């Protein structure tokens, strides 16, 4: 092959590589700028202002840069192909392969990596230099971009019509992270379970965790120490209703009482917050923390109070791992196999975990926990001895204390059992 005759092509490749390097460097410099830099440039000289103005529509700028970069690279590759084909036609096959690969390699290094690395060293200065030419290239290609976007969208709908964006992270990932941290952290099983419970607050509904509103003593104002003394002290909280109705208005945390000098205790009480039954426990805890309160009243769709949730209940559920308040085995698991096909399960076990541990495909449900499912099937709050069936599972409630964990005997029902 006559290299002299190919000189114009080689010169054209070099020029195209320069252009490619310019677009690569522009991309790096412009998109390396942070909001703070752009705000600073917007107050600078006209060329700096032009950079800030250009970056007001970053998607368009990026599309234009990528398009032009691709165009010059493709043109350079076409010229490389022509030269390597000429070499091959003249019987210099090895030289053709070396030229093609060497050319591609040179473009990668000199037109991609090197310009980008240099541009990010002084992004502001380079962005100021390139803003004008990039604005022109954007203007030239802008009539084409909407059409390309439309083709893109149409193809996307044809290729993958039901495409749904993946969640970046799911609660399942967080639960797995805690479970898998056993060997790498100093957490023991009860501490890992506490962290799992903190995560699980996010998708548990408040009506799956609440206690019945009648389980806490309720008084009408005014409330005095004498009135409290007349009743046995069965809970750390008492509820105080509105003066003219049965609706819960306030709550009093008895361990917090530190004086007997106040005649009316209801003035020491804190207000309660009202939350709909379908709110997540996490959202309720967030509100309680923000408002510095301890009790939430759970209301149904008719506005009636159906249950209450206290800070103490939340702490119990997170940090008390025993099956009952009397038990001392703090490491008791939430699912324990009793015999083949039968498990003892905590009411707060998530359906996700239940399905995974039992290897059973569970029916669709709007509930998240075993307790929620049982309540929905029974249409009331569960009591010890209640039995119900849900999909292939049969639940028998063995313990349902006002405070602490519900325990449920769970059996997988085979087809012939039905």
């Amino acid at each position, binding site marked *: 092959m006559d290299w002299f005759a190919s000189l114009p092509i080689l010169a054209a490749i070099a020029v195209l590589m320069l252009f490619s390097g310019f677009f690569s460097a522009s991309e790096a410099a412009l998109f390396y700028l942070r909001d703070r830099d752009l705000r600073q440039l917007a107050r600078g000289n006209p060329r700096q202002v032009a950079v800030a103005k250009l970056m007001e529509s970053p998607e368009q700028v990026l599309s234009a840069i*990528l*398009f032009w970069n691709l165009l010059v690279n493709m043109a350079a590759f076409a010229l490389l*192909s022509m030269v390597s084909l000429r070499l091959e036609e003249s019987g210099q096959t090895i030289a053709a392969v070396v030229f093609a690969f060497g050319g591609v390699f040179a473009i*990668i290094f000199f037109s991609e990596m090197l310009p980008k690395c240099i541009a990010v060293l002084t992004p502001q200065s380079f962005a100021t230099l390139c803003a004008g030419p990039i604005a022109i290239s954007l203007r030239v290609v802008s009539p084409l971009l909407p059409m390309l976007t439309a083709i893109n969208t149409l193809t996307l709908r044809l290729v993958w019509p039901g*495409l749904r964006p993946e969640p*970046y992270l*799911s609660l399942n990932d967080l639960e797995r992270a805690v479970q898998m941290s056993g060997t790498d952290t100093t957490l023991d099983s009860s501490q890992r379970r506490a962290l799992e419970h903190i995560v699980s607050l996010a998708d548990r509904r408040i009506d799956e965790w609440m206690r019945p509103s009648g389980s806490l003593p309720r008084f009408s104002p005014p409330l005095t120490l004498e009135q409290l003394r007349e009743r046995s002290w069965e809970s750390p909280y008492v509820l105080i209703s509105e003066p003219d109705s049965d609706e819960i208005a306030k709550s009093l945390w008895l361990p917090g009482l530190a004086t007997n000098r106040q005649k009316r205790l209801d003035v020491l009480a804190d207000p309660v917050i009202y939350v709909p039954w379908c709110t997540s426990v996490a959202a309720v805890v967030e509100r309680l923390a923000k408002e510095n309160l301890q009790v939430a009243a759970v209301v149904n769709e008719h506005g009636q109070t159906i249950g209450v949730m206290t800070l103490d209940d939340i702490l119990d559920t997170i940090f008390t791992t025993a099956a009952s308040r009397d038990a001392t085995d703090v490491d008791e698991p939430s699912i324990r196999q009793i015999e083949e096909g039968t498990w003892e399960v905590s009411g707060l076990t998530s359906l996700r975990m239940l399905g995974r541990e039992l290897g059973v495909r569970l029916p669709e449900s709007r509930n998240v926990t075993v307790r929620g499912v049982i309540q929905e099937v029974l249409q009331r709050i569960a009591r010890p001895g209640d039995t119900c069936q849900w999909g292939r599972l049969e639940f028998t409630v063995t313990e349902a204390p006002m405070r602490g964990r519900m325990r449920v005997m769970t059996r997988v029902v085979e087809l012939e059992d039905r």
Partner: protein
Amino acid sequence: MFGIVIMLVGLCCSSLFSGSETGFYRATRARWVLDGKAGDRFAKILLWWANNPAVFVSNILIGNNLANYLITFGSVLAVQSLVTSGSESLELVATVLLTPVVFVYGESLPKQLFLQAPNRLLRYVVPFLVVVNILLLPAVLVLWCLGRVLEAIVGKSPERVHSRLARHELINIFREGHTAGLLEPVQLSLAQNFFDMVEKTLDPLIIPLPRVISVKIGSPIAEAIEMARRHQLASVPVADKLGHLTGYVLVGELLLMPPNSQVTSLHSFAKIQHSSSLAKSLIEMRSVEAELALVVDDQQQVRGLLSLQRLHEQLFAGSLARWRK
């Protein structure tokens, strides 16, 4: 025909490389750690690339440029097979006309797909990328070395992703969960404070026995209430006539007793090992419903008292400090 086949192969490869690049930056690193720990080979490979991004980037850069080269080479071949003479300018025009097609199907569309489903799609292309990585290893290594030199000049190095799930990594995953809108701020604060409690010892919270303020069994409750008020106690330790601690009573309980009653210890102390962490103590004390615990050493000698209230203060530290006060 051969030229068109080469073009199509190049276009497919280009779309895989472009999409993979976006997917690689977009995918959830924490999920790779979890899948890797569960034994997933693909996740382990992705994690290795995440910790050696120069190798991955070199792989993608070379692969994508070679793919684009294949497309143009194919188009040049196709034009040459159609036009026998004076084809050079036509070859260039054909390549330029091809650019919008490559832009959409080799760049924009795959990037958009991988942007929407990075974790799912990356799993499909890992074997392809591994094969390419092996085939292009010499070139990748050269480019990797050059990249490292440039990196050293620029002074930037990528953040490492650990394959273990120690405290720091777990907290980071919780932070990511909060940023992704999965966790409320209160959950993040509780988890962080609890993590702190896992590593903290009991010593700063223990009240040594000589400093324990107690009330004698049989004392009038008014005296106990006054003492609790003076020292801002929520629970009062009770001692027998010899001064040995026997249990405790809550101030709320004292208030609800008839005014002329005498103090009795209504609750037993929990027993906590001195070597326990604050987190372990919190779980143990809540599990046995104890407001006060005796801290004992290995020889079962009592070192002092620990109150649940102090543990709660640790749990509700930082942004939650206002709560429960």
